[in-house]
């Protein structure tokens, strides 16, 4: 028989309010005002780039899917688009500008949180401002902030989750654990690698507990395990839910991972054998070593809180781990992650001399990042557009093509949005297009002349583009070339009016 003494429950240790708890001291509208203020520069730059005709692939993809769902009034026409959250956020106002503005908002919110944390370091106002500017005003950061909504959204979720997670592991604040878990779960719907961060956060729990307490709690193992479960459960549940939905509708639970449009898997890395992947590690190491701000954070921790060093090391390893697993993790995001990890992990109450030192390091890191991202084609293109103030020719061609196609009758243009998503997004409507999600698509593909008036193909089709694969070489029977714009060719049925003016 169990003893009454041992079974007597412990008195509940309700979390006590602590001034050190993060984000809980401000009300939602106070946060909102600050988020809006910090978002203004990003939004201005995003609109400027949009005015110059620049549209990133990620934004075009999300916008095209949202336009399609809005036009067909059925969510399932988008298939199992992953990640679904950016798409759902764009859906109420599907327009190429929407993801840019939402991304700016997420960036503004992230910048505000970084500022919020810098305030706790005790550095002078000037140094804080310079530090924030140094890390924000870099091509990789600004591109991420204005042209990569899914990545920026995920990053923002991770930063918010980090703050609540800190409250949870540092002060055992249950509500914060609840919010952190939910946000990590939500972040899975914004990007797959959020799951890996959630697992990393869970793994860090025992390290945090060890760093926070000199002596372990009486039930330390159970406490750690339950806290790890609370941290990781929502993200794991989100993974299970999305896989279940995929299985229900397609019979393939992990279909979304392999979808080229989902950008979960990095095709260049995924198929590489494991032993070969290990050879990437030195490259990742060099990448970390070229982040002076991150290295400074390591040094500070080594000096003031050596127990937290393993925590920082694990977090800094996640970007490498994601890529080592073969998942997609773009370079701007890698650099942004390192910068955020460095800034958010800075211990409180730093000496005043530390401010200028950090600013110098941040500027150096900015230069390194700028050099690295120049290798990424889309960032370079964006940078050229923004700095020169001149549109790219291909953007103008897409815009012109889209504006002419917009005038076509409903479902009269046979196209495959695996390639044509940029044109659909530019057209700001999916109405004229007959796309693979439409029931009549298969029939039209076999017999275009009886089903559509136009066929749109590209000379550089994406994988799985059925229309271009079949008709890129020449127009189908009964069609003639209506015109070309860049890599795009429009075929017109012989009896249909010209949309491109025969040029």
């Amino acid at each position, binding site marked *: 028989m169990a003893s009454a003494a041992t079974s007597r429950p412990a008195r*509940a240790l309700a*979390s006590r309010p602590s001034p050190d708890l993060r984000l809980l001291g401000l009300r939602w509208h106070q946060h909102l005002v600050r988020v809006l203020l910090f978002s203004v520069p990003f939004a201005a730059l995003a609109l400027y780039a949009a005015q110059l005709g620049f549209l990133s692939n990620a934004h075009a993809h999300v916008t095209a899917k949202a336009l399609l769902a809005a036009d067909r009034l059925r969510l399932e026409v988008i298939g199992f688009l992953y990640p679904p959250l950016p798409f759902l956020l764009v859906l109420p106002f599907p327009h190429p500008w929407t993801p840019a503005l939402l991304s700016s908002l997420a960036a503004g919110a992230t910048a505000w949180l970084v500022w919020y944390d810098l305030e706790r370091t005790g550095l002078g106002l000037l140094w804080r401002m310079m530090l924030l500017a140094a890390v924000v005003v870099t091509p990789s950061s600004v591109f991420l902030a204005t042209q990569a909504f899914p990545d920026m959204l995920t990053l923002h979720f991770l930063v918010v989750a980090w703050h609540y997670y800190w409250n949870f592991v540092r002060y055992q604040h*249950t509500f914060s654990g609840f919010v952190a878990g939910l946000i990590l779960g939500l972040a899975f719907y914004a990007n797959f690698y959020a799951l890996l961060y959630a697992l990393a956060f869970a793994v860090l729990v025992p390290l945090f507990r060890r760093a926070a307490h000199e002596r372990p709690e009486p039930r330390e193992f159970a406490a750690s395990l*339950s806290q790890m479960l609370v941290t990781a459960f929502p993200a794991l549940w989100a993974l299970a839910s999305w896989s279940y939905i995929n299985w229900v509708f397609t019979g393939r639970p992990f279909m979304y991972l392999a979808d080229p449009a989902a950008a979960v898997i990095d095709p260049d890395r995924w198929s590489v054998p494991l032993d070969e992947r290990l050879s990437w590690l030195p490259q990742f190491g060099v990448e970390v070593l070229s982040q002076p701000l991150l290295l400074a954070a390591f040094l500070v921790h080594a000096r003031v809180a050596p127990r937290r060093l393993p925590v920082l090391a694990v977090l800094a390893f996640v970007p490498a781990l994601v890529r080592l697993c073969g998942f997609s993790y773009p370079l701007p995001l890698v650099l942004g992650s390192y910068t955020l990890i460095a800034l958010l992990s800075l211990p409180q109450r730093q000496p005043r001399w530390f401010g200028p030192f950090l600013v110098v390091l941040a500027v150096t890191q900015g230069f390194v990042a700028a050099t690295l991202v120049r290798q990424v084609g889309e960032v370079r293109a964006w940078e050229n557009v923004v700095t020169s103030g001149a549109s790219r020719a291909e953007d103008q061609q897409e815009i012109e093509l889209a504006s002419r196609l917009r005038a076509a009758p409903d479902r009269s243009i046979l196209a495959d949005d695996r390639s044509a998503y940029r044109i659909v997004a530019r057209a700001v409507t999916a109405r004229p297009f007959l796309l693979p999600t439409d029931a009549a698509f298969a029939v039209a593909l076999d017999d275009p002349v009886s089903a559509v008036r136009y066929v749109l193909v590209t000379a550089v089709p994406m994988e799985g583009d059925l229309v271009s694969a079949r008709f890129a070489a020449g127009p189908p029977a009964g069609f003639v070339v209506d015109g070309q714009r860049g890599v795009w060719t429009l075929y017109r049925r012989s009896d249909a009016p010209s949309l491109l003016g025969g040029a």
Partner: protein
Amino acid sequence: MFARQLSAAREPDRVRQRLRLGEALVERGLLTPEQLERALEYQQRTGDRLGRILIALGYVRRQQLYRVLAELWGYPYVDLLREPLDVQLARRFDPEELVRRRCFPVRWDRGDVWVATAEPPTSELEAFVRSVLGPVRVRPLVTTEWDIDHAVQRVFRDVVLDRASLGLYFRSPDESARRVLVGWQKVVLWASIVGLAVALALMPRPTAVALSAFVNGVLFIYVLFHFLVAMTGARHEHLQTISDDEVRALREDELPMYTVLVPVYREANVVGHLIENLRQLDYPASKLEVLLLIEEDDEETLAAAKAARPPETVTFVVVPNGLPKTKPKACNVGLLFARGEYLTIYDAEDRPEPDQLKKAVIAFRKGSPDLVCVQARLNYYNATENLLTRMFTIEYSYWFDYVLTGLDRLRLPIPLGGTSNHFRVDRLRELGGWDPFNVTEDADLGIRAAARGYRVGVIDSTTWEEANTRVGNWIRQRSRWIKGYLQTVLVHTRRPVRLVRTAGLRNTLGFVLLIGGTPFAFLALIPLWSLTLLWIVTRTHAFDALFPPVVLYVSLFNLLIGNGVMMYLGMLAGFKRRRYELVPFALLNPLYWILHSIASYKALWQLVTKPFYWEKTHHGLSRYLPTSSSPGVATES
């Protein structure tokens, strides 16, 4: 017998009256000077009457004290247990009034009315007696308040039974569950059943789709509502409305009289624990009145209670036998005899945290005048006994720590828990006490309070209870709760317009979603999960028609997000209570909800067949009960 002393009775001796009670008791050897000194010191601290203090400290027996008081006041003492009572005379008075004034008319003799009193006789007493009997000469006698209570129970047995059982029904039939359905509810119910049957026969597919949409839509709203409430509750978890400093700052002389009702039925084995647990309460014993409510036919418990030799602050109140035989009826009897300014209910096996009564007092003082009740949190001391107790504890932690706190913060109606609800007695009487025909009388009372414009709050104090350890027993208890929820919804929606007008639209929606949504969700669970399971196994397309796109999205949301969130909240609740070992068990919540669903079908069946039947829950089954009890001897409540 005082009758033999009547001739000897004389006018009050003013000289004797000057002698002080303590000195008189010491003089008679009933009290030592040291005891008197301690009692006086106690009196200085609490400001209470010396007599009550001496009784509470166990220095003198009640009868001894009142005999001395009789001498001091100069009136004869009467033992009402032995004295033949004039029933006809007594029944001309209102029993509640007699209890309140602590007096009882004993005999009427040629214009002289002998009235026993436990208070110093005053002209007010004379006026009261004359207001009922006309111009008579009032002759005071002295007796104990126990004797008065006992005499009232004996003489007014039928009145007490009647008021406890039917008081609310006669006073406000619309608020009583004695009628399961009122006229229009019957019409709507039958019209719905017939309409659904006809629609299914004539247009099976659209009707099935509409039904599916309705069920999934309601569940969707229910899940969102729970999430909102729990989030609000969780957000404020770190805010302590009553701090330990406030409790420490309370002056004992400012504390009011507190009544504790303990309804017991066939719980002989836990009476000893009850007395021990109540002893732990940090409240001046002299200001504590414990009424042990024992059913008339439960001689075993009565004998056990007497054998436990409880302190003098514990009073046995015998609940007259009669239908319905429910806990709320017993509580109504207790309310009739309650003398406290505040009142609470504990089950026999409850272990309230010692400062709970003080926290309740502070909550009432800090609260607005419309605060009629505060609910303490309930949790289980035998959480780790088996899988069922683990699941039950997770559920209770979620309910009391998050949902009720959230409801409180959102100022929505709070369904009271089974015990540890603390009332202002005057307001409770105004509300009509508990509905003995409602098998979750506590939830009903919370909602009734809200419907009358009062507020129920929560306090951050826990009462530890015994979780059900056996599945059959659990289903019995749960089916009663769900039946009670159904009764409560039916009662309070009888006059929907009036409800919205008095409680407000927000409160009404909150009440309907919480109290109505719970049985609905559990009734829907088995059919919906069966469909899902069948589909997974067979991959049939037979159900496709039931789930057009929007319904499908909502249904998937409920299945995936809704269940995930509810499981997660269970985890958090376990974590918040620092019961780490329970956290992983929250993953098994879906299995636990199947038990809820089974119980809800039983509840629905019983609502039709036996609406007022009180499903007995056996207590005292826990292995974690202290060994002084008789383990394995089941009791019921």
